[in-house]
C-alpha cells in the first residue's frame, strides 16, 4: 500500500468510525468447485461469517448451519447497554437476516458430535453427515457454578452482570444507578478460566467509577476489583496502565480472588483465595460467570484432552490454523476454539477468513497457507467518551492497527470506534464482507 492509498484508507476508515479493532481483509479471491458437505455448528458471529464466506467461495458445496437460536446479539455492545447508553433493541437482531442464500439452516441445537463417524446429531435426533465440520457453538455462561447465583438474579439484590444478554445488561445499568443512589461497596471481578471479552469486567468498573463522579456520588461508594490472579489484565503493559488508573481513581484491587459463592439476601460474596475463603459484604456486585464449552461439545471427543484448556471443554485446535489436530476435517472458530485469548468478535474477524481460505484452497487442490496470529482487540472503555484501543496477539504483543492511535492512551477517537464504528463492521463481518 503506497502513501496515497494509506491515507485514503485511513481517512475513510476514520470517517466511517471504523475500528482498527475490526480491520478488514479482502474477500478470498479464489473459489473451490468441490461438492463437499460442510456443517457449521452454531449461527453466532463466527458461524454466520463462516457460512457467508464459504457460500461464496465454495458455490458447489452443501452448507448446513445448525442452531436453534433465532435472535442474534451484538455482544460487543453489551457494555454500552450496561452503561445505560444503548437500549437492548440496538444490540438485538435476527439470525435470519444474516443467513446467506443457499445455506440450509437447521433450527435445532446440536446434541451430539461424532467426529469418528463424521456426523452430528441434532436435538430431535436427526443425524447430519459431513465432509468438513466447523465448530462455532459459542460458549456457555455457567452462572450456577457460583453457589447461590442464578441468571434470574441479575438486576435484583444489587446484582449485575452484563454478559447474560441485552435485557440483563439493561437491568445491570439500572442496578448501577440504584447503587450510586444508595452508596456503599461495589465489587467487580472476573472468573479464573478462559472468558469472552476479558476487558469487559474492567470496563464496567471504569463506567461505575465515572458515572459516580459525574453524579457527584464518588465519595459515597467504595469500588473494589477482585482480580482472579496476580494481575488485572494478562497483557503486561495494559495491566500496568489499568493498575495505575485504578490507583488514581481510588479503585481498590484484591489479587487472587475468585468468586465462589454469593448470598443475595445477605449481600455477601465469598471468594476463593490462596489463603482460604474470604467473604466480603457488598451493596452492589458485578458477576462475571465461569465460561465453558456447551455440554454437547464437552461430552464429545473434540475438546483438549489435557492442559489448561481441557477442564472447560474448549475444542482442541492448532493455534495458527484452528484445525483440529486429531480430526483433520474439523475446525473451530470463535469462542469455542481452544486457543488462548481469542474470545472476541475481533478475533472472529480474523479467524474466519483463515479457516475459510484454507478450506477453499484445500478442496480446490491447493496448499492452504493462511495463518492466524491470535489477533484480538478490546476497545477498553475507561469512562463516558473515553477508551483505549488495545490490540494484541497470541504472545500478548501490542499490535496497533492505526499508528496514530496510542493503545495505552484514553482517547475519544477510540470511544468513537466503540460507539459508532464497531456495529457496522460487525454486520459486514457477518455477511463475510469485512
Amino acid at each position: 500500500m503506497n502513501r496515497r492509498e494509506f491515507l485514503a484508507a485511513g481517512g475513510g476508515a476514520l470517517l466511517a468510525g471504523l475500528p482498527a479493532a475490526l480491520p478488514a481483509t479482502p474477500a478470498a479471491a479464489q473459489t473451490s468447485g468441490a461438492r463437499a458437505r460442510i456443517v457449521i455448528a452454531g449461527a453466532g458471529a463466527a458461524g454466520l461469517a463462516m457460512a457467508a464466506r464459504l457460500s461464496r467461495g465454495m458455490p458447489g458445496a452443501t452448507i448446513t448451519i445448525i442452531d436453534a437460536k433465532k435472535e442474534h446479539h451484538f455482544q460487543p455492545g453489551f457494555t454500552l447497554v450496561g452503561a445505560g447508553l444503548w437500549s437492548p433493541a440496538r444490540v438485538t437482531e435476527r439470525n435470519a437476516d444474516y443467513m446467506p442464500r443457499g445455506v440450509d439452516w437447521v433450527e435445532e441445537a446440536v446434541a451430539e458430535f461424532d467426529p469418528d463417524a463424521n456426523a452430528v446429531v441434532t436435538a430431535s435426533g436427526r443425524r447430519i453427515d459431513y465432509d468438513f465440520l466447523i465448530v462455532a457453538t459459542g460458549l456457555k455462561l455457567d452462572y450456577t457454578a457460583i453457589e447461590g447465583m442464578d441468571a434470574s438474579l441479575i438486576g435484583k439484590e444489587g446484582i449485575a452482570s452484563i454478559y447474560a444478554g441485552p435485557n440483563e445488561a439493561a437491568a445491570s445499568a439500572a442496578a448501577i444507578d440504584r447503587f450510586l443512589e444508595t452508596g456503599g461497596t461495589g465489587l467487580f471481578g472476573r472468573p479464573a478460566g478462559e472468558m469472552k471479552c476479558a476487558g469487559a469486567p474492567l470496563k464496567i468498573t471504569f463506567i461505575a467509577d465515572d458515572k459516580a463522579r459525574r453524579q457527584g456520588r464518588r465519595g459515597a461508594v467504595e469500588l473494589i476489583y477482585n482480580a482472579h490472579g496476580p494481575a488485572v489484565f494478562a497483557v503486561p503493559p495494559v495491566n500496568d496502565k489499568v493498575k495505575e488508573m485504578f490507583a488514581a481513581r481510588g479503585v481498590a484491587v484484591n489479587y487472587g480472588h475468585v468468586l465462589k459463592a454469593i448470598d443475595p439476601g445477605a449481600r455477601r460474596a465469598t471468594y476463593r483465595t490462596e489463603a482460604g475463603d474470604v467473604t466480603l459484604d457488598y451493596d452492589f456486585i458485578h458477576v462475571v460467570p465461569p465460561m465453558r464449552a456447551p455440554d454437547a461439545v464437552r461430552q464429545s471427543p473434540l475438546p483438549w484432552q489435557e492442559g489448561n484448556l481441557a477442564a472447560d471443554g474448549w475444542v482442541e485446535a492448532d493455534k495458527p490454523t484452528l484445525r483440529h489436530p486429531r480430526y483433520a476435517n474439523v475446525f473451530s472458530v470463535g469462542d469455542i476454539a481452544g486457543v488462548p485469548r481469542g474470545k472476541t468478535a475481533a478475533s472472529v474477524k480474523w479467524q474466519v477468513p483463515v479457516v475459510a481460505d484454507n478450506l477453499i484452497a484445500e478442496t480446490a487442490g491447493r496448499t492452504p497457507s493462511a495463518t492466524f496470529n491470535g489477533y484480538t482487540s478490546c476497545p477498553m472503555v475507561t469512562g463516558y467518551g473515553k477508551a483505549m484501543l488495545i490490540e494484541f496477539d497470541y504472545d500478548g504483543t501490542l499490535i496497533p492497527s492505526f499508528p496514530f492511535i496510542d493503545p495505552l492512551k484514553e482517547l475519544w477517537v477510540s470511544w468513537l470506534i466503540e460507539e459508532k464504528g464497531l456495529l457496522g463492521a460487525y454486520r459486514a463481518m457477518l455477511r463475510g464482507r469485512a
Partner: protein
Amino acid sequence: MSDFNPVTLFFILSEAMGGFLWLLLAAGLLLLGGVVFGVSRLRRAGRPAKRPLMAAAIMGTVATAVFTLLMPAWTLTDTGAFASGIDVAVAVLLGLVPGVLVAAAVFTMASLRCASRGPRVRAA
C-alpha cells in the same frame, strides 16, 4: 491498515448507515452537479466565482465548526472527552463531511443568484 480496501469500507459504511449512506451519496452527487451547473452558469454570464466561493468557504467553515462541536454529543458524550490532538483532528474530519455539503449547497445557490444578475458591465 494494509487490509483496508474501498470495497470493504463500502460494505462497512453500508451496514453502519443503511439507507442514509445512499441518501448521503445522492446528496453528494446532487450537490456536485449543482456546483458544476453553477460554475457553467457563471461562465456563461461572464461573472467571476469569487463571491460564491467566499460565501461557500464561510458557510462551509461555520458548518464544519458546528458539526465538529456536535461530534461528542453524537457519540453520547461531551466536549470534555477530547483528550488529544488526534481526537480534535478526527472530529474535524468528520465535521468536514456536512461542512463540504453545506459549502457545495451555498456555492450552488450563490452562483445561480450571481449568474442571474447578468454579465458584469465594465467601464469603457
